């Protein structure tokens, strides 16, 4: 008895494993129909603003698109499409304000940004007149942030080394606990501490140095945490190979473990710096404002970009407000340069070593 295989070969039966699928043009069609419905229904509901129409269109889209999918594909796939829709909507909801902020800073800041703005200070420039610049603030920020890093990075890295390489027992638990908790200290509390502790009690003058201490407190736990993560990623085989060669522990750490984690550590440090660069509250408490350039962070009044922005806004004139936006733009550019440098460093080191440590 021969089995008639012709039908099997010529036209395969519909597979039971794959159900029907919504056509690709369903997405576009749903969007179009939804928008049409929203515009048409504005006559009835009276909702005619951009936001209102968008919301109505979104709801209509969900009903059409997901309903269609539900009927055609079944619940699992409809849920999947619904989730994708929600996530995309969330993305749009997040991007709209963020892009709006960036756009506002860009638009208003570019009106004022030029070489003169970057190379002149505000010395002898009146609040009402245009001109002047933030050179004094730029120098201040660079110095204060550099000093803060000088304090925070070594201590943070050393703490992380202790937690990863040596940490066993109560000291390690306590330190790890406090590092985690320190991440949440509000910036104003750090500023209050430096002000009441160092300035009021010990008589340390308000200066760039005091500001850098406040910033260092904010940077320390972040540097420590990210370094800890980077060190844990270094494979243990490396350490054991080093010990097997008779290299003492401390040399293993400094010559083998740290260099492999170096890219991540530098990236983490730069991200910490980027986060504290825009902090205003602690700087207002710990520095004394000036309009002139002061390259000495240890004594004398020193400006910084966040306090410059603050000072210009409280002057209230149109020219000052424009300068404030320019200051915000310079801050964003500064941080962009830091991020880009961090990525560059990371890429260079991992490229050279061929290790996918990221």
């Amino acid at each position, binding site marked *: 008895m021969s089995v008639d295989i012709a039908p099997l070969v010529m036209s395969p039966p519909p597979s039971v494993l794959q159900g029907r699928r919504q056509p690709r043009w369903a997405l576009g069609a749903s969007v179009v129909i939804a928008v049409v419905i929203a515009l048409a229904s504005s006559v009835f509901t009276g909702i005619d603003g951009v936001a209102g129409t968008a919301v109505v269109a979104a709801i209509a889209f969900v009903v059409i698109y997901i309903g269609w999918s539900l009927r055609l594909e079944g619940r699992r796939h409809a849920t999947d499409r619904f989730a994708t829709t929600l996530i995309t909507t969330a993305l749009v909801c997040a991007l709209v304000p963020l892009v709006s902020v960036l756009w506002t800073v860009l638009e208003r800041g570019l009106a004022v940004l030029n070489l003169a703005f970057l190379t002149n200070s505000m010395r002898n420039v009146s609040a009402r007149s245009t001109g002047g610049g933030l050179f004094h603030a730029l120098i201040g920020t660079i110095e204060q942030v550099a000093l803060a890093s000088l304090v925070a990075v070594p201590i943070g890295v050393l703490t992380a080394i202790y937690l990863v390489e040596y940490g066993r027992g109560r000291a390690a638990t306590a330190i790890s606990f406090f590092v985690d908790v320190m991440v949440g200290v509000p910036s104003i509390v750090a500023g209050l501490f430096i002000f009441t502790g160092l300035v009021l009690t010990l008589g340390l003058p308000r200066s760039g140095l005091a500001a850098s201490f406040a910033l260092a407190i904010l940077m320390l736990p972040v540097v420590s945490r990210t370094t800890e993560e980077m060190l844990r990623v270094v494979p243990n085989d490396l350490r054991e190979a080093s010990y097997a060669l008779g290299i003492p522990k401390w040399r293993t750490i400094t010559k083998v473990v740290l260099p492999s984690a170096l890219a991540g550590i530098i990236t983490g440090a730069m991200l910490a710096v980027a986060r504290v660069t825009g902090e205003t*509250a602690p700087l207002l408490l710990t520095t004394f404002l000036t309009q002139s350039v002061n390259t000495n962070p240890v004594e004398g009044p020193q400006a910084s970009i966040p306090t410059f922005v603050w000072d210009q806004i409280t002057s209230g004139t149109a020219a000052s407000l424009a300068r404030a936006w320019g200051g915000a733009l310079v801050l964003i550019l500064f941080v962009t340069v830091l991020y880009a440098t961090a990525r560059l460093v990371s890429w260079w080191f991992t490229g050279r070593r061929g290790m996918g440590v990221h």
Partner: protein
Amino acid sequence: MTTHGDLVARGSRAASTSSGESLGDRVFRGLTLSAGLFMVTIMGAIAVFLVWRAVPALNNNSGSFFTTTSWLPDQTPPIFGIAALLFGTLMTAGLALLLAVPVGVAVALYVSHYATPRIGKSLGFVVDLLAAVPSIIFGLWGLAVLMPNTGGLFKWLNDYLGFIPILQNTTGIYTKSMLLAGVVLAIMILPTVSSVSREVLVQTPRMDVEAALAVGATKWETMRMVVLPFGRPGIISAAILGLGRALGETIAVAIILSALFEINWRITEPGGNTFAANIALKWNEAGTNGIPALVASGLVLFLITLAVNMVARLIVQRRRTKEGTR
């Protein structure tokens, strides 16, 4: 001549933490330990100094520190309390968290699993960039751009959902409210929540994800069964980080809120005040009793963030030991 055995013995001796440690090891160990203890000392010092400076005001208060709503420490007799500040801080931070966490996690999911790598990187970069914008700019933007465009929405909420007491508005004014401050705070902490979540979600083992897809799970089911459970501790950390920032946000909130010292549950009405914003608003003109009073409120803020971080750490630790990861 050193034999192979000598080398191994020397190595294992050097690596041990018993009395066989070399001088270099002891010094280095001490160095790293002191760095760690330094951080503990800083935390302790912050607490000590804040308490020390706050005590003069606490002794000098004719109202109850915890239940009074008004803030008049420089008046005679001084009367001030943190009731309104506590309410405002928790309310605005809570609103911010409610809005920022779902959206932030969704953005992180999109960037790590839904988008192509290049788009993902660019999006991630744009979102991260906003973590650097100073708080005062967010405040100005909130007033200039967001406030005029949300008045209509808040009014709609009152008109159609006004039966929910929290969304009711009895003043007819929809500006400078706690809801607006909450929205601005949410936008400010979004980059933090999103980037920390993203860092965790990209570390999901590819094998697990592909295994799920291979047995026919839809993308969302993969997320739900594999990615999100894997990233849950990290997402909780991200949320706590965001909460910490929202609790301590100073200048943006000071510019936006109308600073009324009362406990008002109707969040679309003008008003409200938080610990950090109050310090920013009152510090400049504070007198001999005013400054210690503000330091006392800073101390309460510090303790709250401490408590929040401790609870979060406990949750994350417990999850980690339960799931056996790390």
